[in-house]
């Protein structure tokens, strides 16, 4: 019941906001969207508080027949891997609603409704245990995001929205064929957990691996199918970028742990070299690309790709440090990238520019903002005592266990990450006041302070005391590794 609420409360709130009518009722729509998002978050809290850390089995399971002709069930459940994503998503939704409070002036209801519906659908992806249900949520998330980028985005929004949509649709359509193949070879079952036990030949596994790889790699996104992300991020409104970076990218990562690794263990091990290489290219090469960006949003977008490279790297070194580190990194990146996009949004709302060279000396006019952004910049470069450190450290430890050279290359991210983030920070925040626009800037208003402040608390808490995050994962990660280690041939 709890999971159904986590999915349908935000969706219902979104429909309600949409039904409230046009922009004349904007204040009412804002407050009801806020109420909906807070309610949506509240119903997810029991998922964590009454979660049983000791078991790897699915919890809060709901099972009801849905499409009998295809043996499709409304089958929900969470384990230690997925539960945190649902909380993260519901939390981020609140911040997005608050951050868009005064910034969005046209079609307010549609904007807020799109985010609320998107939030419910994303919870659905993480909670679905039936492949068709998963796929329905997975694809349905594209529609609100397409509209968010296309209506409230920047000048090149139409191109970015279409590119985002078609790129990700391409991947997910191949996933659909893979799911249908599994359905037929499992004798008519769409239950993901049944597929974990399904024996498959190596050829079939490799083919399925590539079918799924496209879907998940495009979402993550991995090099070289990442090119949609900088466009989408740059053009999307702040809220869109936040949800895109914080949650949507995690769908790809989640897909790897829920589908690829346990269903196709042999192919995963055979092709680990490929995944590791692509991940390292993302970490190093995209890190360098981020260094030369002149647009703040683009820089953070490339930084996201580079950080997500760490996540995929962690999955494919097949040890507990790697996988847990990758999951922690996913959650942490959810907070940090969200916060950084909010920071850029704060500046953009005042100056209507994202170009780094238009800024300089912002600390003189916006000290509170500068302090908070400092924290997020540090977290993005993996400074100890911030959440960014925990995940990266664990993945590097895992990589070290696997191979020294692997760990060495992966660790360069600590240098590149610090370089591009802090250099951007220096150019934007420090130095003399660059121009009259900067000198006219006003510091954070209470609403912005609330959004950035709550994210700052999350980042610091997770950096100083990560145990509440990792302890829920242990059992499920060990179970996952057991699946990966066992051959299906």
């Amino acid at each position: 019941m709890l999971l159904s609420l986590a999915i349908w409360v935000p969706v219902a709130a979104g429909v309600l906001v949409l039904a409230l009518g046009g922009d004349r009722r904007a204040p009412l729509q804002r407050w009801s969207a806020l109420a909906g998002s807070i309610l949506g978050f509240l119903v997810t809290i029991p998922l964590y508080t009454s979660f049983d850390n000791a078991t790897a089995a699915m919890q809060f399971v709901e099972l009801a027949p849905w499409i009998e002709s295809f043996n499709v069930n409304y089958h929900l459940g969470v384990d230690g891997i997925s539960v945190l994503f649902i909380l993260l998503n519901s939390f981020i939704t609140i911040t997005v609603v608050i951050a868009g409070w005064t910034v969005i002036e046209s079609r307010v209801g549609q904007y807020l409704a799109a985010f609320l519906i998107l939030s419910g659908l994303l919870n659905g992806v993480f909670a679905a245990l039936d492949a068709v249900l998963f796929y329905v949520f997975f694809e349905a998330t594209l529609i609100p995001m397409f509209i968010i980028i296309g209506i409230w985005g920047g000048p090149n929004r139409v191109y970015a929205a279409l590119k985002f949509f078609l790129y990700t649709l391409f991947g997910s359509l191949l996933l659909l064929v893979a799911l249908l193949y599994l359905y037929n070879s499992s004798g008519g079952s769409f239950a993901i957990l049944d597929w974990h036990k399904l024996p498959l030949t190596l050829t079939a596994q490799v083919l399925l691996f590539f079918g799924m790889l496209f879907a998940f790699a495009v979402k993550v996104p991995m090099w070289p199918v990442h090119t949609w992300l900088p466009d989408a991020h740059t053009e999307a409104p702040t809220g869109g970028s936040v949800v895109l970076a914080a949650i949507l990218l995690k769908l790809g990562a989640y897909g790897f742990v829920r589908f690829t690794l346990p269903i196709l263990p042999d192919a995963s091990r055979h092709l680990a070299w490929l995944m590791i290489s692509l991940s390292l290219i993302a970490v190093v090469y995209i890190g360098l690309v981020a260094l030369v960006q002149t647009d703040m949003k683009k820089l953070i977008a490339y930084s996201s790709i580079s950080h997500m490279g760490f996540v995929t790297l962690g999955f494919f070194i097949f040890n507990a440090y790697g996988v847990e580190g990758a999951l922690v990194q996913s959650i942490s990146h959810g907070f940090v990238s969200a916060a950084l996009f909010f920071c850029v949004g704060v500046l953009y709302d005042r100056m209507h520019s994202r170009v780094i060279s238009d800024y300089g000396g912002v600390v003189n006019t916006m000290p509170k903002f500068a302090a908070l952004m400092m924290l997020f910049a540090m977290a993005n470069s993996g400074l100890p005592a911030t959440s960014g450190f925990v995940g990266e450290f664990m993945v590097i430890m895992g990589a070290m266990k696997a191979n020294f050279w692997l760990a060495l290359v992966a660790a360069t991210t600590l240098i590149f990450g610090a370089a591009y983030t802090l250099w951007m920070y220096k150019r934007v925040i420090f130095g003399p006041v660059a121009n009259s626009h900067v000198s006219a800037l006003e510091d954070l208003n209470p609403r912005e302070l609330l959004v950035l402040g709550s994210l700052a608390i999350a980042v610091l808490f997770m950096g100083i005391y990560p145990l509440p995050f990792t302890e829920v994962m242990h059992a499920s990660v060990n179970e996952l590794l057991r699946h990966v280690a066992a051959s299906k041939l």
Partner: protein
Amino acid sequence: MSWIAVLEHLPALPEALLLLGTCVLMLVDTFVKDERRAPTYWIAQGTLALCFAATLFVIAFSDLKVIDDRMQVAKYYIFNGLFVADFLSHLVKLVSYAAVSAALVYSRQWLVDRGLLRGEFFSLLLFSLLGMMLLASANSFITVYLGLELMSLCLYALVALNRDSALATEAAMKYFVLGALSSGLLLYGMSMIYGATGTLTIPDVANAVRGLASSSLDHHFLVFGLVFVVAGVAFKLGVVPFHMWIPDVYHGAPTPVTLVIGSGPKLAAFAMAIRLLVNALPALAADWQQMLALLAILSIALGNITAIAQTNLKRMLAYSAIANMGFMLLGLLSGLVDDNWLNRDAAYSAALFYIIIYTVMSVGAFGMLCLLSRAGFDCENLEDMRGLNRRRPWFALLMMLLMLSLAGLPPTAGFYAKLAVFNAAVSAGYLWLAVAAVLLSLVGAYYYLRIVKLMYFDEPKEAAPASSRIQGGVLMSANGLALLLFGIVPQPLMQLCYVAIASL
């Protein structure tokens, strides 16, 4: 005639009622002066409602039985085996009534605005519906041909409804010539099979072919006939390479007529395919499945790729129809796998489900074009959709649902239709076909999304809100939301399709 004899013919009650209603309509219409033609309109709708009730009545009186865990509805042969009333025909008829009834609602204002709402529109439409019903219930090659011609001749005339429009008359001419050609091909194919089997009744043909197909000489002869039958069916479905008439007719015909051509006749053509291929020639399935595979992939490719280049919405939807019929064929060609029929029910019911959902989408899309038009303005170019979200947010939302459903995206019904046919193809081992179709449906998603883009992302070209009457708006809402509803609970309709195929 004794009462027993009348009762025996009860399964043909809907056809009888429709014929009667249409005759009354023609008589009454001669006295109607009103340009809105309220009496005619309501007689037509009333007749359709009566037919709907009659079909439900016939279903209610059919025996149900369960054989091998498959629920089956009994079928009745009447008129000396020329006519069969089985659940497939009932289902096709029910959807056709709904489609024609919706066509009347959507098109009324459009036709009034252009002075085209004449009695002929109603009588031709209802007679073509009678043709579709005969086609759905055909149990003999003769009935197939009668139904087909009745339906097609009415449609040819309907296309030329606006006789002052050069575009429409050209389209009608083209439709007529190519339609006649395709009827000829079909007739030639049927005569070949008649020559080989010596019978016209479909079940007898099936038995005779089963006996003959083992001999290689007879097999060659039958396949020769089969090629022409498949060509005739493909013409009516409008699949590549027999699609040339579709874009011109869709474009040239008045939008309400395009709405009619794009919905019921597709269902009827599907029923014809089931009758001729599945019922009459299952013994040649291995042969016609190969032909359909080629037609399917060509249609999906050409339809989806060419649609991108269109600037006229009706033409774009025409190419989309070609592609969609290709997707539907994926189900129709997956029944027989390695000489066993285990996949039969799943595959054909997937195709049936697909075509029913497609009919709902097609009616909705063309209905939307009718509703967005007004006197002196035809909404038929892509540009006309620009900024619809600013002018009519609710209609924009419904149109988006229609487009997403056509693109096959969840949570709309179009997704389950695609899922069903892809699954049929994968389980029949046509993995390459499924992968190719899936990738081409990505191409298709582009042009449907472009409509969403125009409606939501672009500013309106003109400020005037589109006018529409309440009736049309309510029906359009039901139509659009039905796609969402079938997307959330697809099971009941899927089950009906399954029963229809299992009872064949």
